[in-house]
């Protein structure tokens, strides 16, 4: 049996011409490659931090 309210939740508004500029300007263009790069950068920074700490303690 179809639940009208549940089905209604599946419908989302469509992009209008008036909002096109904002949407394009603020479009999130992050992809997997960007995420991997960011993770790689964070890992390198953490790695450098650990070495320095070790040197200081030594």
């Amino acid at each position, binding site marked *: *049996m*179809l639940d*009208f309210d549940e*089905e*209604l939740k*599946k*419908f*989302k*508004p*469509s*992009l*209008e*011409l*008036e*909002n*096109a*500029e904002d*949407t*394009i*300007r603020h*479009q999130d*263009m*992050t*992809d*997997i*490659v*960007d995420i*991997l790069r960011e993770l790689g950068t964070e890992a390198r920074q953490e790695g450098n931090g650990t070495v320095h700490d070790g040197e200081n303690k030594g």
Partner: protein
Amino acid sequence: MTNAEREAGLLSDRYYNEALNRARIRDLTGAAEKLRVSLQLNKKNVQARNLYGLVLYERGETVAALREWILSQNIQPAMNSASQYIRSVEKEASKLKQMSRGISDYNEALRNCQDGNDDVASLRLRRAIQKNPRLIDAQLLLALINIRERRFNQAKRLLNRVLKTDRFNPQAVRYLQEIAEQTGNPADRRTPVEDDLSDEARNGSLARQRTAGTRNIFRVGNDFSPAVNIIFGVAVGLLAACLLIVPAVRSSAVKNNNDRIVELTTTIDAQNSQIDELNNEISTKDETISSTSSAQNEVQKTSDSAEHLLKALQASYNEDYETALTEVDQVDEDCLTADEKTIYESLSSSLSDQAFDVYKNLGDTAYYQKDYKSAASYYEKALATGSNDYDTLVLLVSSYEGLGDKQKQMETWQKIADAYAGTDNGTYAQTMADNLADELGVSTTDTGSDTSDSTGTGDTTTGGTGTTGDTNASGTAGDTNATGTTGNANTSGTTGNTNTTTANGTNTTAQ
């Protein structure tokens, strides 16, 4: 490029290929899902983004499609099909504007639905689909409302339309199943795809039966004798019946018929005398009939008005708004009952909101088919609703130009000049009206709008040399007006490369 980037790129291409296969068999929902993943893996996959735009365009989400193509163009400005797609959409700017209005109506209808106003949502969705016939979400939502209101036939029609565009749309399939369950008719469950497949199956099984039948006829052997015996016995029985039984039956039938004829002749005589009596009665009642004929005319008028009202309601439900408006115009309000008047007023009010859009759309269709006479007629009806819409007025001028009617062109330019006095459009229109007046050797009424060249009409005055003016009247003006909203698409040009025209006809290059 690192290994991870290379892997992501390859995976993105793989998803793109899968999406392409799905798009080829019109599985737009499936294709869209694959393309979203492809772009999440590699945002620079221009082919995937262009295809995504096409899929969105096919689903009626025109603005979202434009967004994807503009982003694609930004990523790869040269040798990119996206530029061609954007150009072809901008060329039909009035259509873009109309489809965008359809999308706005859909969004508004969705809000109405969420607030519980299904009736208003239903009307808005019909309007949305009229303006943007491809918009799948609007058709699905209206189908959902129709299912809730138990208008299963209308829902089915919408869902089948959706499935013609998006062959395996899961929502449409599910809603059709729901209709089948509620009506208890399994045929309602069938989708156009299933109908195609079952036709093939049926034809295949018929062919198999024919072949089997052919084989049976030619099979001989032990089965032969019993069949012949049966046939022989039947033949003998028939012969006996023909020779012995039938003649006896026939002679008694003849006797019966004779008796019957005598009886009927007596009856006919009696009925003839009755007919004479009735004829006398009829002649005395002629006077009564003539006196009631005027009363009948009144009743007929009432009946006609009610019939027109009913036809208008039916046409409105079937989204045939032109017929609905025509029928409503023929209703004589004085002949309606109180209840009928309430319905008439409600229907008139709802149709009048749409009259302008309906006539404008019909006018646009006729105009693009170069049927200028029909186009002019529809635009006049649209403007008769009380609107002074600039686009419509300019298209009306262009229609008169197509018909070669300079008098009407001049009058319409003058109307625009009066309505938009004090604006650039009004000034331009006044110049055009004056030029045509000079050509025709008549005078126009100048409303005193600013015609000084210093306000920038110098250029348009140059346009009054005839050729350029005409071009402005039929080409640029119409286009610029129609691309008024391309002023908005101007904003889409902020990504760098899109040239658009504004309502005043100046070309702007985005920064």
